[in-house]
């Protein structure tokens, strides 16, 4: 990684003493004024970035990794302030610098790219003009050559037809394209330091790869230093020289990428590393050492179950030539005349969009099947149809010999069949009624469809379910906002299994969770499946996660199935080009 750097042609900060790091953060403490008093988001953090070096700051949510970078740029919001420590960039004490000096530094010497690229761009200004604003601010272009320069920069970030895209508004560009524009903004003035704050979170894995490759190439070309802030250890190790691991506002370990992987020192780093799903690893391997060897899990750690019985018996679920069509999105009114916005049916444009385009698959009894694809591939639409939450346009959904697709979604809710198919939702917060306690949420399906009657009996069942999912019964009377993300996920799982369903659809059940919580939840799901002989349809974008839980994998692209087969063969001997492309895009640290 730290190969030879091209000599930076602009030597602007000539007072930068040789040998010193480009950025030195010492003993940094950042405080936030909150309702519960002063909270230290970052405590005594030391970070150094050498010239041309690529550094990753890795941590889970709340670790203070983003706050650290905001403090460096001095763009903390009003409630936050640097309480202690020093930030020295290129010999300049950033805490002492005037606002005007900081403005000159930002964008010109150090710049930043953010998580959500579309939101990071002014929605009503042409992207070309936004780049020109930066160039003009730092006086790097005169009025006669400014447009040419902006187009040139767009070309450098590999935007096709840059002269045309110069006139585009952000909403006319895809997410990946928007991120390129944000990169163009950040690199327009050839700064010495680039801070990338979760630059690819929310992007598809293939887009992530192109964006990261582009950033790496451009920064290396220019001899720039980079700080990559991410929650993804693999991503950090793939693209960075050194890794800083943060936990609860403090740096727990700093080492080279290779060292972090081979010989992690701090227990937290080890835990994080174990919890990150990787090729060849096991489900149990995700858990911290002490828990993985614990009695509870070891007792039924039957990892390899023969999927053979699924073939002989008729499948639990059979989907045949399933199609879902949507009318193309129409326009909605603005202003007072469109005061109560109505969705206008696309009457002029009669063409329809096929979200799901004739797919067929089966799920056997006790089998778990992964449904994998990137955003917009139709996997969530498929799961909603199988769940009978929405109606399909054509095809069959046969559950245990009965065509449940023929029953309208509206009337399916009250049928006895309903209790046999349940679901775990993607966002544990959104899927809990804020006004129901955990116990009430778990009891809801029992009250509506269950056989158990009577307060005490239902309560006892709730406590039993809480025990099954590892939720302390003391938490049953809490409201969702009083529970952590992992606890909310457990409540959602308890609710889904309350009626002992035969088929459970898991819709990205861990996408909103930190990796360490994900590890626990995945193991829990696996144990429950063994215990109650349930079938899973696991919808996910993450092949590494699907691999751990599923016997078979279905890969979807643009509403169609491109590949299907046993997990091992799909992952290790993919047939379809798209599957290979997906696998190749997963960051793999070269150690």
């Amino acid at each position, binding site marked *: 990684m730290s190969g030879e750097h091209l000599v930076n042609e602009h030597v602007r900060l000539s007072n930068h003493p040789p040998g010193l790091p480009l950025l030195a953060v010492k003993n940094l403490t950042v405080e936030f004024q909150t*309702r519960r008093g002063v909270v230290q988001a970052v405590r005594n953090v030391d970070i150094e970035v050498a010239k041309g070096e690529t550094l990753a700051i890795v941590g889970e949510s709340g670790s203070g990794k983003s706050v650290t970078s905001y403090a460096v740029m001095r763009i903390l919001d009003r409630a936050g302030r640097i309480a202690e420590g020093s930030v020295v960039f290129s010999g300049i004490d950033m805490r002492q610098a005037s606002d005007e000096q900081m403005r000159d530094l930002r964008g010109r010497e150090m710049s930043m790219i953010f998580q959500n690229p579309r939101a990071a761009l002014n929605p009503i200004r042409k992207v070309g003009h936004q780049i020109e604003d930066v160039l003009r601010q730092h006086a790097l272009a005169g009025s006669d050559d400014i447009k040419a320069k902006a187009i040139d920069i767009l070309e450098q970030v590999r935007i096709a037809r840059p002269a045309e895209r110069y006139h585009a508004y952000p909403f006319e560009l895809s997410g990946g394209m928007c991120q390129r524009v944000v990169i163009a903004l950040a690199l327009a003035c050839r700064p010495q330091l680039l801070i990338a704050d979760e630059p690819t979170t929310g992007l598809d894995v293939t887009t992530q790869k192109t964006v990261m490759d582009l950033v790496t190439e451009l920064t290396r070309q220019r001899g720039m230093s980079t700080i990559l802030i991410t929650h993804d250890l693999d991503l950090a190790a793939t693209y960075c020289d050194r890794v800083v691991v943060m936990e609860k506002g403090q740096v727990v370990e700093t080492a080279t990428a290779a060292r972090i992987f081979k010989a992690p020192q701090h227990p937290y780093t080890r835990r994080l590393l174990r919890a990150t799903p990787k090729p060849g690893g096991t489900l149990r391997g995700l858990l911290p050492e002490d828990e993985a060897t614990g009695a509870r899990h070891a007792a039924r750690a039957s990892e390899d179950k023969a999927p053979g019985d699924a073939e002989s018996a008729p499948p639990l679920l059979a989907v045949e030539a399933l199609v879902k069509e949507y009318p193309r999105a129409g326009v909605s009114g603005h202003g007072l005349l469109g005061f109560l916005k109505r969705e206008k049916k696309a009457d002029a444009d009669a063409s329809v969009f096929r979200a799901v385009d004739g797919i067929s698959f089966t799920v056997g009894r006790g089998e778990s099947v992964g449904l994998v694809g990137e955003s917009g591939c139709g996997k969530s639409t498929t799961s909603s149809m199988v769940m009978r939450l929405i109606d399909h346009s054509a095809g069959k959904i046969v559950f245990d010999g009965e065509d449940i697709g023929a029953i309208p979604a509206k009337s399916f809710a009250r049928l006895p069949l309903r209790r046999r198919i349940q679901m775990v939702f993607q966002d544990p917060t959104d899927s809990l009624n804020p006004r129901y306690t955990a116990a009430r949420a778990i009891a*809801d399906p029992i009250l509506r469809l269950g056989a158990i009657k009577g307060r005490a009996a239902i309560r006892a069942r709730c406590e039993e379910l809480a025990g099954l999912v590892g939720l302390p019964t003391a938490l049953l009377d809490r409201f969702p906002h009083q529970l952590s993300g992992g606890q909310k996920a457990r409540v*959602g799982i308890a*609710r889904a299994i309350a009626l002992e369903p035969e088929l459970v659809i898991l819709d990205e059940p861990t996408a909103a969770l930190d990796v360490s919580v994900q590890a626990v939840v995945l193991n829990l799901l696996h144990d429950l499946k063994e215990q109650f002989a349930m079938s899973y349809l696991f919808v996910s974008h993450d092949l590494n996660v699907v691999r751990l839980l599923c016997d078979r994998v279905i890969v979807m692209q643009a509403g169609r199935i491109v590949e299907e087969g046993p997990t091992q063969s799909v992952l290790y001997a993919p047939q379809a080009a798209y599957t290979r492309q997906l696998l190749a895009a997963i960051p793999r640290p070269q150690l």
Partner: protein
Amino acid sequence: MTEALSNPRPLDAEPARPSSSLFAHARYVLSDNPITGFSFALFLMIALAALIGPYVVPHDPLASDTSAALQPPTWKHWFGTDQLGRDIFSRVVTATRLDFVIALSSVALVFVMGGFAGIAAGFYGGWTDRIVSRLADTIMAFPLFVLAMGIVAALGNTVTNIVIATAIVNFPLYARVARAEANVRRDAGYVQAARLSGNSDARILLTQILPNIMPIMMVQISLTMGYAILNAAGLSFIGLGVKPPTPEWGIMVAEGATNIISGEWWIALFPGAALMIAVFCFNLLGDGLRDLVDPQRRT
């Protein structure tokens, strides 16, 4: 990021402190913004005046005494007397009940009509939505006060019709808020989960959607309460609805309007000030309630 910051939580271990109950939140809002507490006290005073005002006022609000006409404020007549020598203080206090009742009943009426129509429109969509939206659009096509004038003129010049007119012109505001909130929640995860648990649409509406929309609707009530009072007072100012000699703030200001030019300010000032304070109180209360329900929307 800020969410993670204000609530630093370790991985999956301990739960958050259960201190963020509604009560604690209310206490926080009150201590953070004492004005909300003040406006609540003011509200209690107005409610008290409406309840017992007519029984405790020092003079009969209708008794005229031409010998004591047009007196500026004195110890006997705190707010002075009007053209007919009636005690303005007694009239202002007595009027509280009528103004309060007009505003409250019109808001209650529109809350039920607009709230249910809006929730149904947002939840069911389709034809229900189209009808409710078209109705609201048509009402919104008129300047609201002008429509209220037209409705009162057509239905007849009575207090009941002022209430009805005020409710009708407020209908779109309620329907819109309720529709938007219901629409957002229609596909929320917990509503989907309730469907999977075997809840019917009606039950989902009642147990999942309504309780979650209620707080926002309550804020809407206290925000439009002030407008309802202003609307009713404006109508009676131009001579609609309430008839003299009934004490009512709007009509009392109208009665004092001609005397302003000759310098007898007190006849119009006190009822006008009472009106202003009442509306001010409801607006502050509405802002405070909004903070209580959703601190992020604070502006």
